């Protein structure tokens, strides 16, 4: 079965937008390691491996977050050239990246809610910017847009 993806321009633009924004967020995450642990990139020694009870961050945590966010960016960017040529693989990668972005947005939302509720329950007050991440609106927004495209498959795919 030959599948041709229609309306390629709009889909490619969405994939580029998703790829570039998530790539920027992954880069920000890596830069947090640089800022908090400069020795990590220079000497390779004497690095504090975690801050006791401070909860401000940890290089492994930043590294893993940048990996996951970077992976979503990679999926969007991988889709771009394939969408341009109208292949099913490009469409699939756009949908897959959207699903991952939505998942990431939901997970970060739940983490944010968890932290906020904990603070409220312990009478510490909820600073809503605490644990709030840009991946939340971006992931959920792009994810919903992609799900819309997926739901209206006949508009974008012809066999």
């Amino acid at each position, binding site marked *: 079965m030959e599948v041709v993806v229609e309306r390629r321009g709009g889909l490619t633009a969405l994939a580029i937008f998703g790829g570039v924004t998530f790539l920027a967020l992954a880069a920000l995450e890596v830069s947090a390691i640089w800022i908090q642990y400069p020795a990590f990139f220079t000497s390779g020694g004497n690095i504090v*491996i975690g801050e*006791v009870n401070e909860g401000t961050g940890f290089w492994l945590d930043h590294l*893993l977050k940048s990996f996951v966010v970077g992976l979503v960016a990679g999926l969007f960017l991988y889709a771009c050239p394939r969408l341009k040529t109208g292949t*099913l693989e490009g469409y699939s990668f756009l949908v897959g990246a959207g699903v991952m972005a939505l998942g990431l947005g939901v997970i970060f939302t*739940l983490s944010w809610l*968890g932290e906020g509720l*904990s603070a409220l329950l312990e009478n510490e007050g909820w600073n809503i910017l605490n644990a709030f991440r840009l991946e939340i609106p971006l992931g959920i927004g792009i994810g919903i847009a992609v799900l819309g495209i997926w739901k209206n498959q006949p508009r974008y795919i012809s066999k």
Partner: protein
Amino acid sequence: MAQTIAVIGNPNVGKTVVFNALTGLRAHVANWPGVTVEKKTGKLDDNLIVDLPGVYSLSPVAVDDLIARNFIVRDNPDLVVDILDGTNLERNLYLALLLAEFEVPLVFALNMMDVVRTRKMQVDVGKLGELLGVPIVPTAAIKKEGIDDLKRQIKTALARKPPIPSIKYSQELESRIEKVVGILAEQAGTFYPEHRRWAAIKLLENDKEVVKELRASYPGAVTKVDSVRVLDDEFAFASERYEKIAEIVKACYVKEEDALTTSDILDKVFLHKWFGIPIFMAMMWMLFEFTFHFGAPFMTMIEWVQGALSDPILESSWGGTWYASFLADGIIGGMFSVFIFLPNIFLMFLGLSFLEDSGYLSRAAFVMDRLMYKIGFHGRSFVSLILGFGCNIPAIMSARAIEDENDRLTTILVNQNISCGARLPVYIIIGGAVWGAAAGSIVYSLYALGILAAISMALLFRKTLFKGERAPFVLELGDYRMPTAKYTGIHMWERGREFLKKAGTIIFVVVVVMWCLQYLPWGVEPGDSALYKVGQFFSPVFIPLGFGIVATVGLVFGFLAKEVVVAAFAMMLGVAEDAGDLGALIFADLGGNPVIAFSYLVFVLLYVPCVASLGAIYRETGSWKWTAFSALYGVGLAYLGASLVQLIGGVWF
């Protein structure tokens, strides 16, 4: 009189969902093949109903196949209900024909009719029943559609046995069947007397089990049968069955040409040769991030309950007595040091159930197979390893579905490296105290380390203890499905319930024993108590790793159940007001050194999961040698792993 009904079918066709719907039970169901590895029984009215492992044929290749096949051919159920996947009729009809060949009263349930409708397929159920000569009930068991009709059909079939279908082969094959039936009637009168035609077909197909049975009772008959058999009989029978299936499908099945499914789209990404494994790693990271952060407010609520129960005791007039301490610090403090992690454990099981029900976990096994193939390990083993995230015991049992004995033993022995839910409390309390909000990533890294250790040990075992060719890996990938809240909730509860049961039994007993040991001999200082002496006895082994007496006691009692590690700390360090305080006390006990804290977590990850898992290894291997080996190599690997963490951590950090 009570009768027996067997529920059978190919893997992942919804047998257990049908079984649950018929019996009202809640046996574990999942969107991947090989979940049922043993018989499960329930009741339909007064009749016994048995859920059998999924099989493709009645010729066994793995332990679970043998369970299903033996039940059908030896236990002679009064009725067999074969569950067919309506979306994949061609494949499912093969087993249906084999059952018809066995000449047993049959009812077919044509399941997944909801998916059939969604995919715009059409099945002429009436015509299908007519061609097969068996009553067919269309069902969508997950939505409870057709279940009442199926119950009615089963009752009717039990009351008035339905006509037994007859499968006829070409004249050439029929004449050979007739000859073998004659030989059996003449020389092996008691050999499957009610299923002689079936036995004849199996003997002509050279079915190893049936030939072995005949040789054991009537060796002379085997020689005669051998003289009738033609070399390609096995293929001739299979080929004629497939021809018949093709005719049936053509007559009653309309499939929209090349419809694009969700699986067609998502599998291009999730099974991609470069992105597949990173996506799996990302999914697992999201699972632990969710588990750690979303569980935090619920932990606070449980702390409130603990305070509400223990504070009135300690503040009462008898607050200073030994029995008040026993109740508040021993029972309540000890048990709640475990209970407090219930939200995290339930959330992790919720996430795992979601991934499992969606169909993603079978994809994870598939993408990991590419990596496993290179090291000679079996992809099916990875399914067992993933099940170990919940509990190692069912994961060890699930290795029954692995055909090759070397692969099966390897899978059983390396499963203990996979981090189960019981180890989560230790990771969370120490991880949270040392690394704060980044503890989710620490938990993730420990789970990833567990997978890496399991794969490395599998490589070692396959190169040394279990040498041999790697068996081919066939895993059927079911469709992606949106998990339903009901089933995902049920699965979460099933797994979490085991944890609760353990808390009410073994953990409770161990906590009471530990409290008593802490105060014995009566009147001594805590440093001279029996519990402390236990720690002192084992501490020379752990001193090189920097683990003190309290940490040692945790590891020793953790051998019984991993949850007890935290309870031991809580008891010996004094029950803290909340998990954060207890974590800080534990961290201080570990010298306030993050490297030692991480090496302690690695030790907890790699040594024997619990005494019950050793029992499961013994049951599955039938060997004390392998059971002892598993315990010893686990401790050795844990020691090596913790030492390596300290060595590398000492140089780098």
